[in-house]
């Protein structure tokens, strides 16, 4: 930890936060918010939590910003500003200051930053640090805690994303009549934003992005990364295609039906592996029992393989749902024309 660097990053973060709230153009707000996320990701990395930084970069600074921009394009860039101080604003200010003071009071009792004697580094961490390899044979402790020790949380986090996908679909998706559909096909042939240079560059970029995403998923056991990050990058490659070409190019490669099925399949792989463990006679998500059906695998290695399985499930689910959310957001739910 280099305090000069921290100071700069933290100052910039606070500036970004103020700018996001006060800027009058929502598109600028979305972009500044992306910058805010990127600075957060620098901060996480600088604090040594590389996995969190990676996730923040992929989710917060990456697709999060794209979603915000898509939402702004579909609604409005203008914001109604009310400069007058009304009672509800005053109460809000009071509540926020009160919470700030309370949090500062609590801060006084916290152990120092990165204190090796703090309860958080004394209590459970030593067990994970010394035993992860012996118990799960996965070198990246973050992965083993995420996908195995607390794998049940991660399963429901994937389910949260699944729920978000279904929720966006349920709220935004609009059905269309047959005639309307034919008209749309006839009218939608002309393309508005054909730009040769951008399209060519993105066409070269997409395969590398997808390859990198697969690497991130597969290498999550050994280095920062895993299903969430890899899935988001995979999804982002499709979103990039959709931005530079059009919605139809992407829908030709992955139809809505496939998208829904893949989203389900991903979460199902995760929960299904859990159920498989149960059927084989152990507790839910106890991967060690998978050694019964995996050839030449010890219970410890089975845990490692089980984690790889669920990471793949997470990646598939996250990819499909990111694409689904973006498609619905950018086309206003009718899947006819993107941005």
């Amino acid at each position: 930890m280099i305090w000069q660097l921290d100071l700069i990053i933290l100052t910039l973060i606070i500036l970004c936060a103020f700018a996001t709230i006060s800027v009058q153009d929502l598109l600028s707000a979305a972009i500044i918010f992306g910058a805010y996320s990127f600075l957060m990701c620098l901060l996480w990395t600088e604090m040594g939590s590389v996995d969190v930084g990676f996730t923040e970069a992929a989710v917060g600074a990456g697709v999060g910003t794209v979603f915000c921009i898509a939402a702004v394009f579909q609604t409005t860039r203008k914001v109604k500003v009310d400069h007058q101080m009304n009672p509800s604003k005053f109460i809000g200010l009071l509540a926020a200051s009160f919470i700030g003071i309370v949090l500062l009071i609590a801060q006084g009792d916290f152990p120092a930053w990165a204190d090796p004697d703090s309860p958080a580094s004394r209590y459970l961490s030593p067990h994970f640090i010394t035993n992860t390899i012996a118990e799960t044979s996965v070198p990246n402790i973050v992965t083993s805690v995420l996908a195995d020790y607390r794998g049940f949380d991660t399963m429901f986090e994937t389910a949260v994303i699944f729920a978000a996908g279904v929720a966006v679909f349920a709220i935004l998706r609009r059905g269309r009549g047959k005639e309307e559909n034919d008209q749309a096909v006839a009218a939608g042939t002309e393309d508005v934003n054909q730009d040769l240079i951008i399209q060519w560059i993105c066409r070269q970029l997409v395969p590398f992005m997808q390859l990198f995403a697969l690497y991130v998923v597969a290498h999550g056991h050994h280095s920062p990364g895993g299903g969430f990050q890899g899935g988001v990058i995979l999804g982002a490659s499709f979103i990039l295609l959709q931005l530079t070409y059009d919605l139809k190019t992407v829908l030709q490669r992955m139809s809505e039906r496939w998208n829904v099925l893949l989203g389900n399949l991903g979460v199902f792989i995760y929960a299904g592996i859990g159920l498989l463990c149960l059927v084989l006679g152990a507790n839910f998500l106890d991967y060690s029992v998978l050694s019964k059906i995996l050839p030449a695998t010890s219970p410890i290695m089975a845990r490692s393989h089980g984690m790889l399985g669920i990471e793949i499930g997470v990646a598939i689910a996250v990819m499909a749902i990111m694409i689904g959310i973006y498609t619905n957001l950018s086309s206003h739910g009718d899947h006819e024309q993107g941005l």
Partner: protein
Amino acid sequence: MIYSEQLPILLMIFPLFAAFAISVTGVFHTRYCYPVAVCALIGSLYTSVGVLFEVLEKGVIHYRLGGWPPPFGIEYVIDYLNGLVLVVVSFVSLGAVIFSKESVKQELPDKIPQFYTLFVLLVTGLLGMTVTGDAFNLYVLLEISALATYALIAMGKGRAMFSSFIYVIMGTLGACFYLLGVGHLYIMTGSLNMGDLYTLMPDLYASHAILVAFLLILVGIWIKMAFFPLHGWLPNAYTYAPTATSCLIAPLMTKVSVYIMIRIMFSTFSPAFVFNTFAAANVIVWMAVAAIIGGSILALAQTDFKKMLTYLIVAEVGYMVGGIWLANRHGITGAILHIVNDALMTLCLFLVVGIIVYKTKGHQFNNMQGLYKKMPITMAAFTIGALSMIGVPPTAGFFSKWYLILGAIDSGQWSFMAALLFSSLVNAVLFFRVIEIGYFEPFADHHGHGHHDGAAIAIDEAPLSMLAPLVVVALSLIILGVYAGYIVTNVIQFAVPAGI
């Protein structure tokens, strides 16, 4: 043997896998969505009753997820308290899902698969929050149920979207507070397991950080349960939600939040900390008094039947929070009994609203004119639900109110007792007004003349899929009332923490 060991997780597996099944089959056919959801929730009810009997027989059940011992892994802990709440949650959600068939077809014909997917995910979240023994796992499940609720509310018509947006903001704030609190606990102790926190924390009770953590968690849960004056989001969100949605969330969301508050107060923190170190019990009982009186008065001002009920929910939250913070056996017993009773009473009344909306397309008071003659069974069930809300013996509502009043007397909290009596009086005024409209005012045709084409639904008894759950729930209110003493001596008295 293995089967009974795996019961705690099986009750989550049914609705979780049903979500995938509904979502996938929904791509091809919408007709399988409803039966799959019903079957899954029957499975949940069956297993949760099994779990409750296991607890009654053998005591507290621990289940290690992934086979890891706590505090390294996540565990499920089921004792007398959440065993009972699990049965309530699965029973109410089963009733709501059976009821939803015709209502969803009428209100959300294009979104049937999405509706049922989110519905079972919400039930998964509620069951998971109830069964878990891990403070962070609770947060993840809170997120699932919250996301599902936002979408289920926003699927309604008119102002539903906007009300849901307000709920998103408030709900996210509540969840943030909870997470911040849990973060504080982790920094101070290094653990996330509730039982583990219970043993680790007593040395730290003097610390400001622990106090702030408790305050943050408490306020977070209060926002989630719409405790007065943090209730602002609830009435509109529940009123404009689709009928089938409000039948599930109105009875359950606030009750599960009250359960979480009990769990955090007595199993993560301890009664000693909550009532001695934190020492704000009196203030909170006064807040509960404000909730009961405020909710009742706001309910009096409504002309919309469904909205009136949502304000009564706000008042009922005051009953339960106040009962717990009375800090004595009777008060807590009453509050826990009221979780059970209020879930069923609210379900009963919202099912009645659902039928009225289905038949008359509205939920104003004047939609109820003359309905006693047109649909006697529905209105008989409504009368039972109303009597229970007022607290007339032998319906269930009387007994929990009785315990709450005993608790108020034990602690000398006369204001709380007065608020309970005032609220009963207001409920009597409210429901007799509705009964009068339904019984004496002549039936008026709200569709006007000239709309009597084939599509119009005749105003008579609702279809069996709506009537059956309503009748079962109404009868269960009486049965619960009759067996209230049995439930208290065999289940709830073990759920009240020792030393109170």
